[in-house]
């Protein structure tokens, strides 16, 4: 294990390992203080950033932050590293890599080719010495395009997961939120329900219901019920219509054990999903959720800072060619990300790091009521992620998730970003919205069509 030092003036800072340099170079956040790995002063933090900037990228291939023998994710990272893809940046230090990313040689094509050559630790390292504008500027160069029944991630587009959660999974209550969202032009990433309970019978009913709505109105989108991967496998075995297979994942083997999963279990979920052959345009079908702090929360972080743990989760995700990956940035609470400033920075880091690794990143731009954050902070993060080229965000009624008890972006918020930044939905869904006379968009000009499109009038009339 190498040790590193950096001198500024008369003071020399020493760091005993790459893991320590990385942790102390992290911009301040409550979770790293909770774990006891954060820099003890602002000066030490910047000294660690300076030391980090001088470390060759190649060094990351020889010093694992979590030992190869102890952790299957480290093994996955090392065993799947593509040396040929790494070659264009193999001579650079972390600091040199930042310069390279900001320069003209880094463009959509070169960054796509580079992704398999990068490890999550390299990507986390460079993000730690980047400012917010760097994280946005580089991320927007990258496109990660995936397909199931429509196309995610094209330039100039941003999709929304319609999240119609209901406190008791009542079918009509869920349908009401779905219709509200559709009439505001949301839902192209998926209809994604967090069920209130994880009973197999209830999950199967929800899957059948979402499938029936998608088929009845010929909506070019996909459905997901966010339950444990083993429950999705069981549902598939019972013949339920499963489009996307969901799982929460983290960046260490021990943290994933806390979720009750291994890489092998994820592989089984992926293969069960593939066996359904329900995608019409492609077979990206895994949907993962992550979030800084999950490894620490499971006491499974091995002394690694929470942002680096998070990026290791993206290495897990990309192995299964996911349809979308969602960093649920402010959900975990103030003990990991204390306030709006920390949540905003973390959301931009996660998006940048995921994209650089070739992962189709979205963000649940969110906060809980025990965090020091509010709607103004979410507006800021939404605007910045829209500019950074995010693949998808959440869309829920009035920002209020009445099942999970937190606040995320609303149907209206998505239209704000469309109007401000000219971001359109997935092309197949955009055509459906036009055909249904729900939403017409030209650049940043939005026009909502009939108050209730003909196709939905019968349904509403049933309610009297």
């Amino acid at each position, binding site marked *: 294990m190498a040790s590193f030092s950096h001198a500024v003036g008369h003071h020399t800072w020493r760091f005993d390992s790459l893991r320590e340099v990385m942790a102390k170079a992290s911009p301040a956040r409550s979770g790293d203080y909770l774990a006891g790995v954060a820099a003890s002063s602002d000066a030490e933090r910047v000294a660690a950033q300076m030391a980090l900037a001088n470390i060759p990228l190649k060094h990351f291939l020889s010093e694992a932050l979590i030992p190869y023998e102890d952790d299957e994710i480290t093994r996955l990272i090392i065993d799947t590293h593509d040396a040929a893809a790494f070659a264009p940046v193999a001579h650079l230090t972390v600091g040199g890599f930042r310069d390279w990313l900001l320069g003209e040689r880094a463009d959509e094509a070169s960054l796509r080719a580079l992704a398999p050559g990068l490890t999550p630790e390299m990507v986390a390292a460079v993000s730690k010495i980047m400012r917010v504008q760097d994280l946005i500027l580089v991320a927007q160069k990258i496109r990660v395009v995936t397909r199931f029944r429509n196309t995610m991630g094209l330039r100039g587009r941003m999709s929304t997961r319609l999240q119609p959660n209901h406190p008791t999974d009542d079918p009509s209550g869920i349908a009401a939120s779905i219709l509200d969202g559709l009439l505001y032009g949301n839902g192209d990433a998926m209809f994604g329900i967090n069920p209130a309970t994880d009973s197999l019978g209830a999950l199967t009913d929800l899957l059948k219901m979402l499938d029936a709505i998608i088929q009845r109105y010929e909506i070019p989108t996909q459905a997901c019920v966010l339950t444990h991967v083993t429950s999705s496998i069981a549902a598939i075995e019972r013949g339920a219509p499963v489009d996307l297979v969901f799982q929460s994942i983290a960046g260490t083997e021990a943290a994933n054990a806390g979720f009750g999963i291994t890489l092998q279990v994820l592989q089984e979920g992926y293969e069960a999903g593939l066996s359904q052959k329900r995608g019409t345009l492609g077979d990206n079908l895994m949907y993962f959720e992550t979030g800084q702090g999950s490894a620490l929360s499971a006491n499974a972080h091995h002394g690694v800072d929470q942002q680096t743990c998070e990026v290791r989760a993206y290495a897990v995700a990309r192995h299964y060619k996911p349809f979308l990956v969602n960093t649920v940035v402010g959900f975990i609470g103030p003990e990991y990300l204390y306030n709006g400033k920390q949540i905003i920075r973390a959301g931009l880091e996660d998006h940048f790091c995921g994209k650089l690794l070739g992962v189709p990143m979205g963000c649940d731009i969110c906060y809980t*009521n025990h965090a020091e954050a509010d709607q103004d902070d979410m507006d800021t993060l939404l605007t910045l992620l829209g500019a950074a080229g995010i693949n998808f965000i959440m869309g829920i009624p009035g920002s209020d998730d009445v099942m999970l008890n937190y606040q995320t972006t609303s149907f209206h918020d998505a239209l704000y970003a469309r109007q401000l930044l000219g971001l359109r939905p997935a092309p197949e869904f955009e055509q459906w919205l036009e055909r249904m006379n729900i939403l017409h968009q030209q650049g940043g000009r939005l026009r909502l069509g009939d108050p209730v499109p003909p196709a939905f009038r019968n349904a509403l009339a049933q309610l*009297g």
Partner: protein
Amino acid sequence: MNDDQSPSGAIDNPWQALRRLTPARIALGRAGTSLPTGAQLDFQFAHAQARDAVHLPLDADELAAGLTERGHQVLQLHSAAADRHTYLQRPDLGRRLDAASVQTLRDYPHAHPGGYDLAVVIADGLSALAVQRHSLAFLDRWQQQASEDGWTLAPICLVRQGRVAVADEVAELLGAKMVVILIGERPGLSSPDSLGLYFTYAPKVGLTDAFRNCISNVRLEGLSYGLAAHKLLYLMREAGRRKLSGVSLKDEAEVLSLEGEAPAAIGNFLVGD
């Protein structure tokens, strides 16, 4: 565009009828494509209320009195998080008991030297309001349904500034085979009083969430006391039979109870019946 327009130009949605189907904030209307002023300020007020709920202290004495009236023995405990500020930033402390509470449990003269079947823990979590509103009523309902099982019950432990995993330490010190904790969930805008139940078989300090089963959103507008009690009993009976809890113990309570009934309940106004 022929929606209903107010003088300000804000537009109502003509699908107001959907609002009775869900507590979600649907059919809010729009100003341009943004939230109209009324909906915007309603949201801000709800957020302010939820923020206030997080900081409401648990009235443990009142709760203890209610439990004692029902014939329960009650122990009042405190986590290692000294106050709310510490609790919010140090979940590790909220998962452990303070030294005095550990001593209380060690000193407790056990009526059942062989240990108990079940320990019940009640903790404030992130909403003391939830615990104060629902825990007694839920326990009444659960006890009615559980009476035939004849489980031996440890004294009910109230833990202030507690998190879910604190139940493991309580149960281990009391020598209980199973533990359920009733805890206030993080307040939502529309639900400042949602109660969560977490069940563990063979609890001990250091278990992860993979060893627990969760029943969430118990409140008047959410999961009923009766259904929550039914689910919990199913988990307890299955756990006792299979000697485990958590992800290996799927909640098939509903599957079993619905087996052989009519086709799946997926009907709704969008797809007809």
